[in-house]
C-alpha cells in the first residue's frame, strides 16, 4: 500500500549550514518524494548596492557574500577589474594572493569538517575544528587587520606587504594543522558511523554531473578531474606543483575523501608559495580611488573555491562605478537544482548532511 504523503517544512535553520534556507519536502514515511528549496532569508542586495559604489568601495561588500570563504570574492573582483582595465599585478602580490586563498581554503575546510560532522550528531569535531581554524584567523588578523572579512586583495595587488616574521608563523600553523590530521581521521574520516551514514547517500549520477553544473569537490567526488586552478590557472598556480584528488563513488563519502586529501594539497601549496615568493612590489597603485574610472568592457573570471568554481561577471560602462557585478557561487547551482534532484529518495535525517556535502551556502545564492 502506498504511504500517505505529507508536506514538511525543514529549516530555515539546518545543523552545520552557514546561513538560512528552507526546504519544502513532500515525504512518504521518512522518505523524500519531492524537494523544493526556498531562499530569501539573507538577501542583502549586494549587487544593487555595488551599482552605487565606486570600484574600490565594492571590495568591503563582496567579501561578505560568503562567510566561510570570503577571499575568492575579493580575488575575483580584483582580477575582473584588472582584466577589463589591463592592469598588471606584481609577481609578489600574486604569490601573496595564493597564500591567502589557500589559507582561506584551509580555514573553510575546518568549518566544513565541523559542519559535516555536526550535521550527523558528532559534536566533538566542530569543537576541535573551530578552535583550530582560529589559529588561521590569527594569521589573517595579523596580515589584514580582519579575522573573517579581510578586504586585503584589491585591484592592482594586495593592500600591504607581509609583516616581519609572518612566514615563520604561517609555517608553524601549517605544521600544527598537519599534525592534527591523524586526529581528524580517527574522529571523523575513519569513524565507522560517518562512513555508514555517508556511503551511498546523496548520490550525483556521474553522467549527469557536468550537465547539472556540479563543480568542485562534488564533481571530483564523481571521479571527474576538473579544477579551475589546473584547467585555467590564475595568479601563480601554474608555477606550483599539486595534485587534484578524485574519488569514485559519487556520494557524500567520496566528497569527504576528496576534501580530506585537498587539505594536504593546500598545505603543500602554501609551503611552496612561501618558498618561491619573490621580493618586490606588492601593489601596482591605482589612481585616486574617488576619480578612478574603468574602461568600458566586461569580464568573467573564476577561482576554485572550497566548494568549487566561483565566478564573477563584471561589466563596466566606462564610469567610476560598476554597471553590473554578478556573482556565481557554486551554491547557486548545488543548493537549488542539484539539491532538489538528489534529495529525491533520501531520508529526512540526511537532508542537512547532504546539504553540507554539497557546500550549500545560502547567502551566496541570494547575495
Amino acid at each position: 500500500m502506498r504511504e500517505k504523503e505529507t508536506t514538511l517544512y525543514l529549516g530555515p535553520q539546518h545543523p552545520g549550514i552557514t546561513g538560512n534556507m528552507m526546504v519544502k519536502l513532500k515525504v512518504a514515511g521518512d522518505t523524500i518524494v519531492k524537494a523544493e528549496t526556498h531562499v530569501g532569508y539573507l538577501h542583502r542586495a549586494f549587487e544593487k548596492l555595488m551599482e552605487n559604489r565606486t570600484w574600490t568601495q565594492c571590495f568591503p561588500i563582496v567579501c561578505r557574500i560568503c562567510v566561510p570563504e570570503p577571499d575568492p570574492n575579493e580575488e575575483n573582483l580584483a582580477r575582473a577589474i584588472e582584466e577589463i582595465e589591463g592592469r598588471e599585478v606584481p609577481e609578489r602580490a600574486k604569490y601573496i594572493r595564493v597564500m591567502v586563498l589557500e589559507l582561506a581554503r584551509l580555514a573553510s575546510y575546518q568549518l566544513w569538517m565541523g559542519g559535516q560532522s555536526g550535521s550527523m550528531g558528532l559534536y566533538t569535531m566542530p569543537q576541535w575544528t573551530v578552535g583550530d581554524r582560529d589559529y588561521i584567523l590569527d594569521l589573517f588578523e595579523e596580515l589584514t587587520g580582519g579575522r573573517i572579512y579581510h578586504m586585503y586583495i584589491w585591484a592592482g595587488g594586495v593592500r600591504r606587504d607581509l609583516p616581519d616574521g609572518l612566514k615563520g608563523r604561517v609555517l608553524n600553523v601549517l605544521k600544527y594543522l598537519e599534525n592534527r590530521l591523524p586526529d581528524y581521521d580517527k574522529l571523523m574520516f575513519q569513524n565507522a558511523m560517518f562512513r555508514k551514514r555517508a556511503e551511498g547517500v546523496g548520490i550525483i549520477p556521474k553522467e549527469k554531473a557536468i550537465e547539472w553544473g556540479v563543480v568542485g569537490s562534488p564533481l571530483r567526488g564523481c571521479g571527474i578531474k576538473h579544477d579551475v586552478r589546473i584547467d585555467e590557472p590564475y595568479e601563480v598556480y601554474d608555477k606550483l606543483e599539486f595534485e587534484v584528488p578524485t574519488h569514485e563513488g559519487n556520494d557524500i563519502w567520496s566528497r569527504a575523501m576528496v576534501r580530506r586529501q585537498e587539505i594536504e594539497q593546500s598545505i603543500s601549496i602554501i609551503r611552496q608559495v612561501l618558498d618561491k615568493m619573490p621580493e618586490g612590489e606588492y601593489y601596482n597603485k591605482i589612481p585616486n580611488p574617488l576619480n578612478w574610472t574603468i574602461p568600458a568592457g566586461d569580464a568573467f573570471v573564476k577561482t576554485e573555491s572550497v566548494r568549487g568554481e566561483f565566478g564573477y561577471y563584471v561589466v563596466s560602462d566606462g564610469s567610476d562605478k560598476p554597471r553590473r557585478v554578478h556573482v556565481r557561487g557554486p551554491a547557486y547551482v548545488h543548493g537549488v537544482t542539484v539539491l532538489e534532484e538528489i534529495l529525491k529518495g533520501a531520508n529526512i535525517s540526511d537532508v542537512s548532511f547532504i546539504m553540507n556535502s554539497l557546500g550549500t551556502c545560502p547567502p551566496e545564492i541570494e547575495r
Partner: protein
Amino acid sequence: MLDKDCNENKCAEQIKKTFQTAEVEVKREKRVTVQLRSDLIPPFLSFAKEFMEFKHLSHMSCVDWVEDNELELVFILWNYEQQVQIIAKTRIERVNAQFVSVKKFWNQAETYEREFHEMYGVNFVGNDRLGEFILEDWEGVPPMLRDFDSIKYSKETFYQRPGREDAQNVRATIAKHSGEEVPGFAKDYTIRNIED
C-alpha cells in the same frame, strides 16, 4: 560531426560558419565573445552544447542598458576538454521583456531565469517556476532595473529607531554632550548638524 579539437580561433570560425549573422570576436586566449540576434540564442546554445562540447553552463547574467531601452542576456559556456570560454550575448526589449526559457538545455538555467524574472521583470516562456524567489511580497519596479531608486525606496520604507536619531552624527553628538573640541580637519564632516 564538427571538429571538436577547437581552440578559440577554430571555435570562432565554426560559429561564424554556422551563424552567419553573429558577431564573433576572439577577445584573448581561450575567450570568445559572440553577439547574436535573440531568436538565435536557443539554436546557438544547442549547437554549442551538442556539437562543440560546451557542456558546462558557467553562468547566466542580465544587464540593464536603460539608455538603449534594452536588457542584455548573457550566457557563459565552458568547454572542459579544450578549456575555452564563450560569452554569448543578446539584447531584448526592456519593456515587457520576454525570452524563451533555456532550461531544456541546462536544468540550472531555471534558477537564473527565476532570478531575472524577479529582479529584471523578464518573462521566460517555458519556465513554470517563475514567481517569488528571493523577494517577498514585492510590488512595483523590479529592483535590479536601473530606474529603481534604492535610496528613495530605503528612505520611504525604513525609519530611524526612536531615540537613535542623534546617532546620525556620533562625533558631533559626543562633542555636544562632553564639550570636547572636534579637530579642525574633522569639522567639515562633524559640525554641520550640531546646531540642528
